């Protein structure tokens, strides 16, 4: 059993599981959406004192922080007990493309070159992580949601604004991948 679930999970299992989680949260009276946790943490850190946007009762969002804590634990469980030590089955075309940018495929989930501790040894490495984070935090709050809030919850509820947001996600992602990556790496 453990061996069976330690293999990489196919996309349809993942899709079904994500829909299940969204429905479960609806039945708990909540909405699946993770980026609002970033706002909640800003509020807890005291951002509400100077900026009106953060002045809300963060306790109403405690449930989502629990969910977030769980997701960290889930990541730990997956890497500690559900590993199969097989390299990621990345498409050959992607391996070739990223290698031509100077990012090597090391078989893990993420290139250690960019996300391992060694990435923190260079100013460029740190800057890429910080700037990437700023874009994510700023963009998701501006758009009012991320992949979970707009792409999953919003599209499931036939929200045109969420469709516009998802089009934006891809516009930005394609721009970064195809035009900015060759300049950055």
């Amino acid at each position, binding site marked *: 059993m453990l061996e069976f679930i330690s293999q990489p*999970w*196919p996309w*349809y299992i*993942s*899709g079904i599981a*994500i829909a299940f989680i969204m429905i479960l*949260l*609806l*039945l*708990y*009276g*909540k909405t699946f959406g993770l980026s609002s946790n*970033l*706002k909640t943490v*800003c509020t807890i850190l005291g951002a509400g004192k100077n*900026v009106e*946007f953060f002045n809300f009762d963060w306790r109403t969002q405690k*449930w989502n922080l*629990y969910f977030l804590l*769980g*997701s960290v*634990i*889930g*990541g730990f*469980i*997956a*890497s500690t007990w*559900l590993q199969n030590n097989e390299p*990621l089955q*990345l498409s050959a075309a*992607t391996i070739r*493309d990223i290698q031509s940018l100077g990012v090597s495929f090391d078989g893990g*989930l993420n*290139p250690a070159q960019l*996300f391992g501790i060694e990435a923190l040894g260079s100013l460029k490495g740190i800057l890429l*992580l*910080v700037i*990437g*984070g*700023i*874009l*994510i*935090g*700023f*963009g998701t709050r*501006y*758009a*009012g949601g991320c992949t979970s809030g707009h792409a*999953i919850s919003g*599209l499931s509820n036939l929200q045109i*604004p*969420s469709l516009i947001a998802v089009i*934006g*996600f*891809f*516009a*930005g*992602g*394609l721009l*970064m991948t195809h035009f900015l990556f060759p300049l950055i790496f």
Partner: protein
Amino acid sequence: MKGLKFILAGIFFGIVMAKSEAISWYRIQEMFRFQSFHMYGIIGTAVGLGLIAVYLIKKFGIRDTEGNPIVFRDKDKSWKKYLFGGSIFGLGWALTGACPGPMFVNVGYGYLAMLVVILGALLGTYLYGLFQKKLPH
């Protein structure tokens, strides 16, 4: 403890995201290069089932576990904030390969440099709050 069910749901989410490689920078690159169906399959399946579930919840007026009706709030009618905000997020998504959920799952997985991405995301969120009134929505 009231929070336990949310922690358990989160653990399941973290395992699913990690085991289906949706937290992988490589997989996000593959997606933005249209070189694999994997990520489209995940999002497509989730949305397809989500559509059916939301339809059924509305049709049968299903209530939550506390007995309250499940309400779906419509998003504000606008396009600027969704397109501009969405595009800015998309830039960061492709750069780091992470969304606001997966960045945390990745920390649990052991990619500790993602903590720097999280700090950046908190800073970005704060900057949005600071400049909110000056931005086109």
